[in-house]
């Protein structure tokens, strides 16, 4: 009388009342003919019923304390606003930090780069030594040497009026290309030096100026294709005159 023996799934669906009415009737009829199965199904059903009874009201908030929908919404809105605010603050901090960092970088750069610091450095290293490329007490020879390496430089003036005679010169180089150090000396062995090089990215053309660095004084200027610096002892009063002569001549 039944078309098909119900599957296990169908039996569960029967208990949960999920069968189509026609099939439901068929299963019901089949169960009537199979009392053993019917008892098993009935036990499931009574388990479910007892569980429903036991769990009715289970989970009721003690004391009637309720989750207030409006309150939750208010809190959500606040949290969203706070999040937006934090994001804005974060963005601002990143912006300020980034900009500040960039400016600080430029500031430290500028701070480290005193004008013609390399000239003073070169003077310290080489002016006192004999490690010069050429030894030339004749101003003409020095002039020729300079002209052969730096073709856009002017006439090197004669500094004998200030008591200085050429000693020699040395070709140098740094990140920006070739540079030269020309060394002069007076009767007492006091040395001054002239430094020149091309202006580069880091060593821009600069306004005339002078500064004292320890025992030394540097006078610097830009002219033509080059930056120049005259480095002399800080207490040497002839520095100003020599600097002026070089500036005019070169």
């Amino acid at each position, binding site marked *: 009388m039944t078309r098909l023996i119900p599957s296990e799934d169908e039996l569960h*669906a029967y208990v949960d009342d*999920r069968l189509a009415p026609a099939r439901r009737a068929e299963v019901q009829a089949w169960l009537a003919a199979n009392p053993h199965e019917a008892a098993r199904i009935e036990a499931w059903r009574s388990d479910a019923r007892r569980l429903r009874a036991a769990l009715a009201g289970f989970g009721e908030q003690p004391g009637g304390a309720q989750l207030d929908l409006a309150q939750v919404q208010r809190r959500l809105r606040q949290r969203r606003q706070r999040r937006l605010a934090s994001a804005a603050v974060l963005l601002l901090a990143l912006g300020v930090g980034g900009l500040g960092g960039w400016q600080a970088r430029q500031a430290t750069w500028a701070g480290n780069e005193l004008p013609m610091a390399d000239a003073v450095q070169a003077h310290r290293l080489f002016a006192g030594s004999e490690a010069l490329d050429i030894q030339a007490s004749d101003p003409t020879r020095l002039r020729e040497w300079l002209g052969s390496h730096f073709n856009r430089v002017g006439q090197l003036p004669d500094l004998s009026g200030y008591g200085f005679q050429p000693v020699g010169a040395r070709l140098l180089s740094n990140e920006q290309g070739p540079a030269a150090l020309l060394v002069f000396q007076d009767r007492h062995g006091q040395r001054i030096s002239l430094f020149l090089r091309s202006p580069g990215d880091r060593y821009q053309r600069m306004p005339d100026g002078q500064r004292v660095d320890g025992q030394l004084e540097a006078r610097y200027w830009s002219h033509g294709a080059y930056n120049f610096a005259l480095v002399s002892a800080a207490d040497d009063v002839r520095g100003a005159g020599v600097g002026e002569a070089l500036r005019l001549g070169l």
Partner: protein
Amino acid sequence: MHDLDEQQWRELLQRLRRFALWLTRETGSADDLVQATVERALSRRDQQRDEEALRAWLFTILYRLFLDGKRRERLHARWLSWFGRAEQDCEAVGGNIENIVLAQADLQAFAHLSTEQRALLLLVSIEGLSYKEAAETLNIPIGTVMSRLSRARAALRDLTEGNPKPPALRRLK
């Protein structure tokens, strides 16, 4: 969710809390879970749902949040065990809902089921979700719903027939 009147809202919360209590077995965590569920639902009110669909949807959110929490907990436990702390694991119902369970004999057998079996029976037998809705809520195929339901009912039957149970519900360590 905003169309619900006071009474419907109250009933919905009670259902969510009941489900959460049987999952977390602890009132504090259950309340947190319900609150998180409501918050999540409110922040995603993208479409109108009727009350039935709304309920299934909320159960789904709650169960996902519960699983996320479990995953985090496991991760946390693994961290702790790396640092030499013992992992504490209690599968059976414990904590502060133990008292409620002890008071009702019918709940004792239910409390001995696995979390997955309890969740499914709650959804199908208590909340009246369809098999399809239950499958979506638990994020499992419908075939798994049927086999798990079959095993859960058989297990509940065994536990109930095995009565009288020992008077005190022991925690499985």
